């Protein structure tokens, strides 16, 4: 189980897009969302985190 940075829940199926873990459902939603859709901005904001290296604890 990994923490999906898009839906912010633990999910078992997904993959890393650079530093960002994205679950399969969120990836499917992202692909189905067009720039005209109101929810598109949400994915843009979330993907900004792709470039951030998580802090090691």
């Amino acid at each position, binding site marked *: 189980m990994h923490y999906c940075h898009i839906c912010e829940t633990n999910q078992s199926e997904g*993959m890393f897009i650079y530093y960002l873990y994205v679950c399969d459902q969120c990836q499917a939603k992202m692909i189905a969302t067009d*720039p005209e859709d109101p929810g598109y901005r949400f994915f843009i*904001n979330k993907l900004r985190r792709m470039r951030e290296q998580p802090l090691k604890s």
Partner: protein
Amino acid sequence: MKKLWLELRLFYYRLRIKLGLKPKEVYYIGGSSALPPPLTREEEYQLLIKLPNGDKAAKAMLIERNLRLVVYIARKFENTRINIEDLISIGTIGLIKAINTFNIEKKIKLATYASRCIENEILMYLRKTNKLKSEVSFDEPLNIDWDGNELLLSDILGTDEDLIERDIEASVDKKLLHKALDQLSGREKQIMELRFGLVGQEKLTQKDVADLLGISQSYISRLENKIIRRLQKEFEKMI
């Protein structure tokens, strides 16, 4: 030998997906340091033939190794007032869409197809923002602090505290005013209605009301003050 190296890299990606390991190398997209190097033609082909089987490691590697292309295309749109970070995010969505819909049987180069998808994604977004220039999204980040937390427009938006009571109070006030007006004489009531537009018409000046009723403006002024004081008393009685 190259194929073995690629299989080893893929194994590393699978391990990352399984164990949640983050990339060892530190790159910054949009920064001066280099991004993951692009794949060779052969490597790309080896990964692409794994895609139809749902190989997530191959997909992740294809996305990561094509991020340079995203940054390159995003930079071409830097003069569009859209933040470069946003352009890279939009381009990445375009790249993910490209990798998911790429068909190896169409004999087209992935870079050509992905470039078109990335550019399309950015152009569609630009078209939308041009249409909505005067509008602002609730999810628009206004600021980002040192920890990377975004302050969105929706975070600072609120409604007035009296939003619900305001209309109810106004309607009660109107009822009370009409009750108080009923206590006035016909002419007094008419003066107030004309001066303050109480029966749906425009407000008139003291001069207009004076001309209409054939009396002097100073008399209207005195009457008005007297009527307002009387109405205040009526109000106090009612409350």
